[in-house]
């Protein structure tokens, strides 16, 4: 039955002639839909001949073509050598001993090369001085493969051949010589006998040559003080392994103080041995790495430090030094008492760039006759002379300089008065920079003599008197570059190669008949004859000193007076260098940018560090936002009329009230990848090369987003994560008291957690069973292991944004914890004393009650001067691993050798394992980080990828990864032994982190070898496992940290 009903859509339909109704009868819409508008450019659309059907055809065709093409496997080409070099076997690594000397880092290292490519830096055990690679040196291999390097010589921004450039420079030098103007060499510290010889010859060849050595971060004061006292421009060496008491006045000697390299000696006596260990008292304003390791740390303003130093001298000397507050007096009295008791076993060091302070420190050590104090064979790793630098700038501005050759330094970036320098450059006829990157200086000068990387160069070093090192190339120059020494030889008309020059120089004046090849193989050389000679000299020197002492009383007295009268400012700025960035030479190195600062745990930034009290008064804030990222306020900082705006602020526990800190090395932009242009340039505030400046600081608008990898800073009284004790308890009590095994309840009985098990135990007694030992006493938190792990295991760099989202990929992290009371012991007590929930007090009261809510609330906040502890955490390779049981595809499995295996190709990326890991050491590849231009960190170009270790997989997107306990290294060691038909020797097994650890904190080995060191370490009373009560039975164990709180 048909319906006659009519459905009306609108009343307009009542009018049959309505145009809209008519139109709607035919079309869906009354008007043309303005497709063009929302599809974009109207003209392009109408101009395009592609209609919808064509488009679908193309899509169809390309899809079909792509799937067809996928049917055929790719053809791989293999290209063998035409003539294989004798010592290269494809697949076998070669090691070469060489040395780095970039003006800031000096170290003898081993370079691992594969098929002729350097891929990793390792420590040179044969070196007696600076034989260990820090984080920056470890990362330097990536800088070799930096695609932003200068790839050839240029003049006035145009590429030029070396012949033309050489001619131009020779002409320029000759013109300068003829005009009677000065020829200036502005260089880094070389500490190289052969380079110095070349420069001497250069001086002879051109007459009026002025060689100015310039350190971006100056040790001028220490050098001047030493020169005045001992007649040589050098730095005193300190043997911390001979010290029982170390007093440091803001000397960050575990990082870069006076060239660094002191950590292994320091760590040696930091481990309790027969009831004894060194004691370290640290007075400083910033929280430094060294301060964090101290047994007692006293926060002080830099001005107060000077007064304290003067007073200490007075106390030791028996004279009375006036000035300063009573607080300082109390501290100094205590220290002086301890120093007097330690006598020759005490040593005092100072990191203030103040000549008076350095003079006094030398005097104190001499007074103490400190065994750790070595002036007979001083160090040459810093030689910069700021007076000469300033004079040079004045000369340049006055037009007295005819030619300027710059090497290894970037004054336009690192001078606080760089504007003067640039002005002066304009008045120099010939300006040449031997630059590695197209940095600020390279852009300012007329001619660029493209410099080689140290891994492409020859060289020699005398880091310490009588201790020589050789530098040899491990790869041919990747680009059309030339090292400065070769350039100098060319420019003075000497056609010898630098290699021949060094060899000749060594044969004639250093080797003394010893083998050149042996020295080159070892990378280091010191003649026994030379050492004894020095010792003979010693006696003479000492006599001379005694005679001198009388005359040197006056300068000391005046120094003391000046120090004691130091007035303190309202706010003092202490400039420092970060462990990761140093002076900023390698700012374009993504490994270092992503390296979290050991103290603040912030990567990809520098920032102002302020104390909590100052932050409150200046209204600075740090807080975590919903995604876990750390946000902070901005500050404007003014020093002597120079203002830097919008510096992010970090509230730093331990920062002395009335001081702020700011690190060098950031804020570079010239010749850098965009991602790497981070932070602000602190060198602008580095007036007169003084690392202490009076400063005014105010809050600025805006919020800064940090990339900080650690959200929680305190242990909340969980003393079993980092176990600590004092030397006194350690010596007097049973280890059950200070290193108790956690207990769990079994059948209503408290039993040790280690005795309870959900699983049946596997038999691991046969074959190898690897364990890694980490001694929290020896670990300084320096982070060399983090970068070594990066290099060995092809760990990707993810960038600031991803780090902020907690997607960092470091297989090895070094957790840093602050105590919320004055000590960690106090935290534990506070937690023990918790009484009930205390809801009332928490909500309505003052939050100071003993309830759990109030107590834990308080404990989240670090103390104003906290104790600090470092704990390297990597995959713990649990024998009963929680990750393994939850993997749905059995991608992670356990081995008999104790390693927890991760089969990447099996992983489907459920991330259950990461969720179930109590140590949070598993890392997920959220993206494809290589070959991806979104992640512009050297792994997206062929050059950068040359650093990849071919023995380790490059993981892809969607795959979980983690520390493998360097299975590629243990497998290699086993294979080598099998091939030689011998058992594996103790000490042969290594991981990247354990071999990079120069302080000896990490030891690796086979505990089934009962004679081995690791088996002994495992039986030690200090041994404990992380989160032992969970029952995971890890193969990584830690050693209880012992603090020497014994006050004399």
């Amino acid at each position: 039955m048909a319906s006659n009903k009519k459905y009306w859509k609108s009343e307009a339909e009542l009018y049959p002639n309505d145009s809209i109704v008519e139109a709607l009868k035919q079309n869906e819409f009354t008007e043309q839909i303005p497709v063009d508008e929302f599809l974009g450019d109207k003209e392009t659309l109408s101009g395009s001949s592609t209609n919808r059907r064509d488009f679908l055809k193309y899509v169809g065709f390309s899809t079909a073509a792509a799937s067809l093409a996928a049917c055929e496997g790719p053809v791989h080409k293999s290209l063998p050598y035409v003539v294989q070099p004798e010592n290269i076997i494809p697949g076998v690594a070669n090691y070469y001993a060489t040395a780095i000397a970039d003006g800031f880092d000096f170290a003898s290292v081993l370079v691992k090369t594969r098929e002729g490519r350097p891929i990793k830096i390792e420590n040179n055990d044969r070196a007696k001085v600076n034989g260990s690679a820090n984080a920056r040196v470890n990362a330097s291999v990536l800088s070799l493969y930096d695609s932003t390097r200068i790839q050839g010589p240029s003049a006035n921004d145009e590429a030029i051949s070396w012949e033309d450039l050489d001619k131009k420079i020779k002409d320029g030098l000759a013109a300068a010589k003829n005009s009677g103007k000065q020829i200036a060499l502005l260089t880094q510290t070389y500490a190289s006998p052969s380079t110095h010889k070349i420069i001497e010859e250069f001086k002879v060849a051109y007459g009026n040559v002025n060689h100015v050595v310039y350190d971006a971060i100056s040790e001028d004061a220490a050098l001047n003080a030493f020169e005045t006292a001992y007649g040589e421009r050098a730095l005193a060496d300190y043997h911390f392994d001979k010290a029982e008491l170390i007093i440091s006045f803001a000397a960050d000697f575990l990082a870069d103080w006076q060239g660094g390299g002191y950590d292994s000696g320091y760590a040696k006596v930091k481990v309790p041995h027969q009831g004894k260990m060194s004691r370290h008292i640290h007075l400083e304003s910033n929280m430094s790495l060294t301060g964090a390791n101290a047994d007692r740390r006293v926060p002080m303003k830099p001005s107060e430090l000077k007064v304290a130093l003067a007073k200490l001298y007075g106390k030791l000397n028996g004279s009375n030094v006036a000035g300063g507050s009573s607080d300082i007096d109390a501290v100094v009295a205590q220290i002086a008492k301890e120093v007097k008791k330690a006598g020759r076993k005490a040593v005092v060091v100072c990191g203030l760039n103040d000549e008076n302070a350095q003079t006094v420190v030398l005097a104190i050590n001499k007074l103490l006759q400190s065994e750790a104090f070595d002036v007979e064979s001083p160090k040459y790793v810093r030689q910069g002379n700021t007076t000469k630098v300033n004079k040079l700038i004045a000369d340049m501005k006055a037009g007295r300089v005819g030619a300027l050759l710059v090497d290894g330094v970037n004054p336009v970036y690192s001078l606080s008065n760089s504007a003067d320098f640039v002005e002066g450059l304009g008045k120099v006829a010939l300006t040449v920079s031997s630059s590695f990157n197209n940095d600020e200086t390279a852009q300012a000068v007329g001619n660029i003599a493209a410099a080689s990387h140290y891994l492409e160069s020859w060289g020699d070093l005398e880091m310490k008197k009588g201790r020589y090192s050789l530098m040899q190339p491990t790869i041919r120059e990747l680009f059309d570059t030339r090292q400065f020494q070769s350039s100098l030889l060319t420019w003075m008309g000497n056609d010898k190669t630098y290699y021949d020059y060094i060899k000749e120089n060594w044969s004639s004046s250093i080797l003394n008949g010893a083998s050149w090849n042996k020295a080159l193989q070892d990378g280091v050389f010191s003649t026994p004859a030379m050492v004894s000679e020095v010792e003979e000299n010693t006696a003479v020197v000492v006599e001379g000193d005694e005679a001198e002492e009388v005359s040197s009383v006056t300068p000391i007295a005046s120094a003391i007076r000046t120090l004691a009268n130091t007035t303190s400012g309202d706010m003092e700025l202490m400039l420092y260098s970060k462990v990761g960035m140093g002076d900023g030479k390698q700012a374009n190195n993504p490994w270092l940018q992503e390296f979290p600062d050991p103290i603040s745990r912030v990567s990809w930034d520098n920032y102002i560090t302020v104390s909590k009290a100052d932050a409150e008064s200046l209204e600075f804030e740090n807080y975590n936002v919903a995604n876990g990222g750390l946000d902070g306020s901005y500050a404007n900082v003014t020093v002597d009329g120079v203002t830097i705006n919008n510096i992010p602020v970090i509230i730093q526990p331990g920062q002395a009230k009335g001081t702020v800190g700011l690190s060098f090395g950031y804020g570079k932009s010239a010749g850098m990848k965009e991602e790497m242009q981070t932070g602000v340039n602190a060198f602008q505030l580095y007036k007169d090369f003084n690392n202490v400046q009076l400063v005014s600081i105010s809050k600025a608008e805006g919020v800064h987003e940090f990339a900080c990898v650690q959200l929680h800073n305190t242990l909340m009284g969980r003393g079993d994560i980092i176990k600590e004790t004092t030397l006194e308890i350690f010596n007097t009590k049973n280890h059950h008291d200070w290193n108790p095994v956690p207990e769990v309840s079994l059948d209503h009985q408290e039993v040790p957690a280690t005795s309870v098990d959900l699983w049946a135990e596997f038999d691991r007694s046969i074959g190898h069973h690897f364990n890694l030992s980490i001694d929290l006493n020896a670990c300084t938190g320096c982070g060399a292991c983090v970068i070594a792990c990066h290099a060995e295991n092809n760990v990707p760099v993810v960038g600031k944004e991803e780090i902020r989202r907690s997607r960092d990929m470091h297989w090895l992290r070094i957790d840093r914890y602050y105590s919320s009371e004055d000590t960690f012991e106090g935290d534990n007590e506070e937690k023990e004393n918790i009484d009930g929930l205390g809801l009332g007090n928490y909500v309505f009261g003052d939050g100071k009650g003993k309830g759990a809510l109030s107590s834990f609330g308080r404990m989240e906040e670090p103390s104003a001067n906290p104790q600090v502890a470092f704990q390297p955490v990597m995959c713990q390779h649990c024998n009963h691993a929680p990750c393994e049981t939850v993997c749905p595809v059995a991608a992670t499995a356990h081995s008999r050798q104790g390693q927890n295996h991760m089969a990447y190709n099996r992983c489907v990326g459920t991330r259950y394992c990461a969720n179930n890991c109590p140590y949070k050491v598993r890392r997920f590849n959220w993206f494809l980080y290589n070959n991806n231009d979104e992640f512009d960190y050297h792994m997206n170009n062929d050059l950068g990828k040359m650093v990849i270790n071919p023995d380790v997989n490059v993981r892809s997107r969607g795959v979980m990864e983690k520390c493998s306990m360097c299975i590629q290294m243990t497998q290699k060691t086993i294979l080598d032994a099998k091939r030689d038909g011998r058992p594996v020797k103790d000490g042969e097994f290594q991981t990247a982190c354990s071999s990079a650890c120069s302080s000896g904190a990490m030891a690796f080995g086979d505990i089934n070898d009962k004679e081995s060191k690791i088996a002994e370490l495992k039986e030690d009373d200090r041994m404990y496992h992380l989160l032992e009560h969970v029952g995971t039975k890890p193969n990584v164990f830690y050693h209880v940290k012992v603090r020497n709180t014994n006050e004399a």
Partner: protein
Amino acid sequence: MKQVLNRIQFSRFLSISLLLVLQLISLPSFSQEAETVSAEEPTADLGGDPVVGKQLFNQNCAACHALDRKMTGPALKNVETRLAEDEGLGKEWIYKWVRNSAGTIASGDAYANKIYNEYNQLPMTAFPTLSDVDIDNILAYTVPQEAPTTSGGTADMDAMEKMEEKMMKEMEVEIKSSRHIFLSVLVLLFMLLVVILFMVNRTLRKIVDESEIAVEKSMMIKRIPLWKVFVQNQFLVFCTVIMFLLGSAYFAYSWMSQIGIDQGYAPVQPIHYSHRIHAGVNKIECQYCHSSARVSKHSGIPSLNVCMNCHKNINRYSGSPDGSSADDLANGYTNEFYTKEIKKLYKAVGWDEENQQYTGESQPVEWVRIHNLPDFAYFNHSQHVSVGKIECQTCHGPVEEMEIMYQYSPLTMGWCINCHRETEVQVADNAYYEKIHTELSKKYGVEKLTAAQMGGLECGKCHY
């Protein structure tokens, strides 16, 4: 039918008998040859014995000299007469030179110095042990022998042997083709059967029609076609579909599981390098060229300087001792072909044959990689070759028979695992294994340990 079968037998008979006849003929020729050689020997009057000379030449001189071309040293064809005629130097000079060339040069001898300078100042190795007779023999060999009677017998023999071989080959071919014939006969038989059946069926129908036997029409109509019955039986349809799906899944799975497995992959290489000639005919040890297999994870493609160790002297292919086979010739593998490949090597390595020196213009050879493990699998040759003492052929197959190299093994994980389960660890004389071997054998109660028992099945041993 019978005829065909007969023919086969006949041809076989024919060929066998031909072979027998030939062999009968060839037997006396052997003895004859042996006789001629011994008979001719004393009568040879060339100042030396070229046969012994050839042997001595190959032992001592061939590394640097050839008869008809320059190598490291000059060509030696007719050297005695050449020296006598051109330089006026007698045999005594040659004796002196051979035994102590450096001395001759030092003595200021003009021609000696000339030669020395001409050949890049490389002094000839001294051969103080060669007697005058030895040198005479060698010199005799350097005189070209134009169809001397001695070689007649040998040539005959060679020809006979070759013919024999050819016959054998032909026979083989024939046997192969007879197999084809046999098969086609069978097919024919079956077709015949089908035809006969069809015809019988038709005849029967005709008989039915003609005898007009009443077939119940109703029955005829009611009979439902088989496929309809099948379609109506839902259970049967269901089962069939399941079977079909399972079957196709099986085939799809087995087809897909071979994706990415390149067993048998034999790409065309830029230089036709015959492993058969090198490893098979000439019995060169695998690790002479692939030396890094002993110490490295890579077996390594030899660099061209390794090729030149031999090919500096071997500049052309003169055929295998038993001549090119029919197969080779069919594929175009003639002596000229191989010689051309050697020239490709010279071009790549930059070897100037004329002047016997390197030009310095080299071009690496872009070999096509055959064995290609995925990046996530770690494989180390030295572990297997040096420690496990496994023959290369175990994984790479009969390389010594491969004219064109191909992937012999599937290189799948299952294949690796199987081998690890079965292969015994070579613990003998290896101090590394001493402790672990005694302990593990006690644990498993076995004397011989497999790689799997050593932990060779753990994921992380190959995947990291």
